[in-house]
């Protein structure tokens, strides 16, 4: 059975299942409960800035921890807790805030196992909201998954719809390595069919969401729906696009990308982050490096421009990659 849920509701469901099935799972972050429910009658909890943790504190008392606005303290404490036996899910409200708390991820979570010769494990999940689309402007909208994907020792996943969010989050929490779980705003705004019950989606394996023989469109997070929209339009012109949802940007499922490229000879990668050192560039480099002889046309990267995320609606819409640009790129490939 599945029901229509928002991505936020799907995440809430995954968190509840994770906490129910494993007493070591705790949540910590800013405003995860929020409000005065514990103190003042007639008030309600916030359940996080986007409501994704609502109701969990009541079900799992003592395991949902409201923290001060101390991102470095949150992540550092979560790393320590993870290394010593808990399975924390820390929330970094917006990915841009990595700027104040990179050390616990970069130098601790990612490296402890390696530095200790394989004798530590850090089963930490960091949930964080990224991406443009909510008019949140430059400091609450950046897509920095390329940064965490570039850090050995971390995994970075980014679901493309509510059902994917549920399955990937459960997999992330149960993974014994630190996983950065990116919630793209474009995906958080979606609703979709979500299966009931407990299920996981393997981390590190891409999903071919549509098959086609003429061109491969690679997307992840919010750009999967962009690629699908482009594929619909291209099909009307007789061009059949294969659409791949990466699901996980680190590790990267190189084989699925390459075998699709081998079939189609043409590839467009759609990434809502900025282009330099991006996942798009990484995929393009992979195609040239390991798939050179498959290329029937140049690999095209459809990304945001090299600029901060703007505020005004017209500017933000211009910033985000859309289906029209994907379609134009495919047409230019001949």
């Amino acid at each position, binding site marked *: 059975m599945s029901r229509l849920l928002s991505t936020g509701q799907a995440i809430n469901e995954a968190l509840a299942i994770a906490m129910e099935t494993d007493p070591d799972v705790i949540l910590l972050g800013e405003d995860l409960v929020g409000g005065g429910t514990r103190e003042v009658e007639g008030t309600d909890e916030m359940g996080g800035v986007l409501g994704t943790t609502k109701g969990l504190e009541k079900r799992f008392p003592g395991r949902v921890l409201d923290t001060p606005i101390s991102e470095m303290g949150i992540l550092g404490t979560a790393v320590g807790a993870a290394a010593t036996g808990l399975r924390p899910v820390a929330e970094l409200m917006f990915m841009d805030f990595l700027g104040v708390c990179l050390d616990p991820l970069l130098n601790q979570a990612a490296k402890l196992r390696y530095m200790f010769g394989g004798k530590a494990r850090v089963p930490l999940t960091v949930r964080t909201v990224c991406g443009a689309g909510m008019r949140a402007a430059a400091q609450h909208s950046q897509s920095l998954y390329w940064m965490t994907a570039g850090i050995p020792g971390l995994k970075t996943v980014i679901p493309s719809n509510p059902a994917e969010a549920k399955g990937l989050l459960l997999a992330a929490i149960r993974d014994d390595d630190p996983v950065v779980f990116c919630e793209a705003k474009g995906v958080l705004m979606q609703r979709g069919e979500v299966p009931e019950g407990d299920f996981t989606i393997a981390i590190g394996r891409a999903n071919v969401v549509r098959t086609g023989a003429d061109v491969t469109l690679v997307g992840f997070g919010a750009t999967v729906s962009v690629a699908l929209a482009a594929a619909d339009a291209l099909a009307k012109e007789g061009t059949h696009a294969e659409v791949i949802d990466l699901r996980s940007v680190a590790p990267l499922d190189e084989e699925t990308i390459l075998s699709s490229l081998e079939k189609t000879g043409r590839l467009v990668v759609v990434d809502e982050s900025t282009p330099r050192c991006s996942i798009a560039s990484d995929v393009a480099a992979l195609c040239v490096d390991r798939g*050179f002889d498959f290329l*029937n046309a140049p690999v095209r990267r459809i990304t945001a421009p090299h600029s901060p995320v703007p505020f005004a609606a017209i500017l933000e819409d211009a910033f985000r990659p859309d289906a029209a640009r994907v379609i134009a790129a495919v047409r230019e490939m001949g």
Partner: protein
Amino acid sequence: MPAPISMPKLGMSMQEGRVVAWPIEIGGRVERGETLLVIESEKAEVEIEATASGFLRHVYVPVDETVPCGALLAALTDTPDEPFDADAFRKSNDLPEAPRPASEAAGATRAEPLRDADVQRGPRRPIAPAARARARELGLDAEAVPGSGPGGRVTREDVEAFAARRKGRRPVAPGVALDVPHQGEGDPVLLLPGFGTDVSAFARQAPVLGESFRVLGVNPRGIAVSDAPAEDAYDVATMAADALRCFEGRAHVIGASLGAAAAIELALASPERVRSLVLITPFSTATPRLLAVLDAWIATAREARPATLAAALLPWLFGDATLADPRARERIARGLAEIAARAPVATLERQAAGLRRWSGTRERDLARIEAPTLIVAADADLLVPDAERIARAIPGATLVVAPDAGHAVALEAPELVSEAILAHLRRV
């Protein structure tokens, strides 16, 4: 047991140090923690404390000498007079002689770096990596494959189409097969294209003729998927001989420009096989201007993309009326670029060499042509001014002159040319 004192490595960047002072006399006692020596590293003097007590037995590095980190500086012994062999101690405790990099070893020569001039430059037609790989698999030269992608890019599909076309080629000489696309049924009609072009130069005539005839387009050596044997020149007589092997019985032979020269050769060498002749903008002796344009054609093809070549050729091949119409001009330029892309530079050079050799050799023989002949001339042809003279020289030849058209009249006035040919073939 003697203990070695070595040049310490103080910090990451220190590579060597200078001995500034030995405050203890040789033979003197030093207590652990006391200053044993003073060194200078990176402009700073540093006192080095003894890590063990003992007697300064031997100093290997005197004051003011600079040695690398780790080099043996001195030996400390537990007692002042225990046996001590300074040389043996050095052998077992000093740094080994550093091996010199192989590049500095005597006699070794360094490879000269590749200079830019050594690298083949100049624009090649774009070929997709997948096309190259597929061509490699099929044993084909990707450079010879016409490209259909943006900017004339050769795609994997182009290579496969090229390979499929090669399968239907017709053997004309030992080791030489020609690409002879055909259409229609009926009496054979041979199409012989001009310099640097393939049968698509007759793209507008072939379907019209195909309604009543079996039309055979002969792509000569080095053009499209025809074999390109490495010869100095593709002689006009060879072109004619190749064409002869592309049909059975008698054929109507239609040639344009250099193709018309081949048609003349065919008519002279095997008159029994030629039912009629159509010579489009023919020449018997090339003018200096024609030869100069061929040189420019080759030079441009070598240096530039097909589109650039097409743009450069346009004024030589078309009349003012066409050149005045931007849309027609653009369409024709695009078609010409595609045609040009199918002729490698080596083929152009060989065809030009054959053309030079043939030029002027048949002036007197024109009169021997027996086949009924149609001459199609263009009144704005800058390259071939003597079509009318040839029409007079061939007995019984009829002449049609296209107004306002240039040398590439079959492309520029396609209906007129098609109608003239059909009328001629029906008359025969």
